[in-house]
C-alpha cells in the first residue's frame, strides 16, 4: 500500500520478520542468558584474535615501511586500511586501547592525507601509534589499561602535538 504526496511515495512494506521469529519453535531464544553465552563465545575467540592481530602487525609494519620509503598518499591509505580494521576489532575482545589508539591513528592519517605530505614528524607519530599498539598486545593490557593506559594515551597526544600540518 502506498500513499503519494506531490513529491514523495510512502510504501508500507509488510515485514515477515516478526512472524518468522515468532513462529519459530527452536529452543534458542534471545534471552539475557543467550546474550551472555554469545558474549562468552566472543571471549573464547580472544585466543584467535591474538593471532589475527599479530598478522595485522606484520601487515601494518610492511605498509609503514612502504610509507617511509615513498611518502605518498597511496601508502598513507595502505596504513589507514589496516589501522581501521584494528580499531574495529580490538574492543570486541577487551582490548579497548587498540580501538582507541587505532582510532587516533586513523584520524591522524586523515589529517596527513588532507595535507598531502608526510614529513619526518608525522612518520614518527605513526610509528609511535604502531609501537604502542604492539606494547598493548605484548603486555596484554585490556580495558582502559588504568594508569598505564592513561600514560600511553598521553604519550600519543604529546607526539601528535609536535606535528604541525
Amino acid at each position, binding site marked *: 500500500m502506498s500513499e503519494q504526496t506531490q513529491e514523495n511515495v510512502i510504501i508500507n512494506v509488510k515485514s515477515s520478520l516478526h512472524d518468522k521469529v515468532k513462529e519459530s519453535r527452536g529452543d*534458542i531464544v534471545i534471552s539475557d542468558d543467550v546474550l551472555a553465552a554469545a558474549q562468552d563465545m566472543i571471549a573464547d575467540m580472544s585466543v584467535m584474535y591474538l593471532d589475527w592481530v599479530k598478522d595485522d602487525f606484520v601487515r601494518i609494519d610492511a605498509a609503514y615501511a612502504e610509507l617511509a620509503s615513498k611518502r605518498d598518499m597511496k601508502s598513507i591509505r595502505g596504513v589507514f586500511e589496516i589501522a581501521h580494521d584494528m580499531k574495529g576489532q580490538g574492543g570486541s575482545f577487551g582490548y579497548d586501547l587498540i580501538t582507541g589508539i587505532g582510532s587516533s591513528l586513523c584520524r591522524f592519517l586523515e589529517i596527513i592525507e588532507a595535507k598531502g605530505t608526510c614529513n619526518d614528524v608525522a612518520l614518527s607519530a605513526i610509528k609511535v601509534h604502531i609501537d604502542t599498539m604492539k606494547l598493548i598486545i605484548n603486555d596484554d593490557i585490556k580495558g582502559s589499561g588504568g594508569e598505564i593506559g592513561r600514560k600511553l594515551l598521553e604519550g600519543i597526544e604529546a607526539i601528535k602535538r609536535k606535528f604541525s600540518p
Partner: protein
Amino acid sequence: MANYSLERLNFLVVDDNKHMRALVKTILHAFGSKNVHDASDGADAFKELRVFPADIIITDWNMDPLDGIDFTKLVRTGKDSPNPFVPIIMLTGHTEMHRIIEARDSGVNEFLAKPISAKSLYSRIKSIIEKPRPFIRTKTYFGPDRRRRNIDYKGIERRKTMLEQVQIPVKPSASAKNPNVSLSEDEVNALLNK
C-alpha cells in the same frame, strides 16, 4: 516481545575482513541462526542475494570493488535487485557524523559502530524486527523512512538536506562543530533517532 528465536532468519554478512565475518557469524550462530551466508564485498554479496533470500544484511563500509554504500544503493535501486526492501545494517568503524548521515542517506536501516558486542548487534536486529519503517521514494532517495518517530503529518514533504535537520540532543561537543570527529554510541543513536 521478550524472547525471539532467530533460527529461521537468513543473514548475509558482508565484510572484506575474514576475521570480522567470523566474529559476526559466531554471534549470529550463538543467537540460534542457522542460515548465515557471507561475502567479501558488495559485488559478491549482490550475486549471493540472487540465490540466497536474505532476511537481514549486515554489511561493512570499506570494501573493494563495491563498498557498503554503493552495495546498499544497488540493493535499493538496482533494476535487477532481488529485494529492494531487505533490511540492511551498516557495520563499520566509521563513526563520524558525516559518515553516519551518508550511510543513512544510502538507504540503510541501522548503523552499528565497530567494535561490536553481542548486545549491540542484537539491539540492531531487534530494532529491525520490532520497529519496521515504511519505505520512502523521492526524486533523490529510496529506502526506509529516515525519520523514526511516527509523525502524523499530512502535508507535502519539504525536506532540504539532511545536514540541516541534524540537531543532536546532547551537550555541545567537538563533533557538533566538526563533522569529522567520531561520535559516541549515544550520539550515534541520538542522530539516527532524530
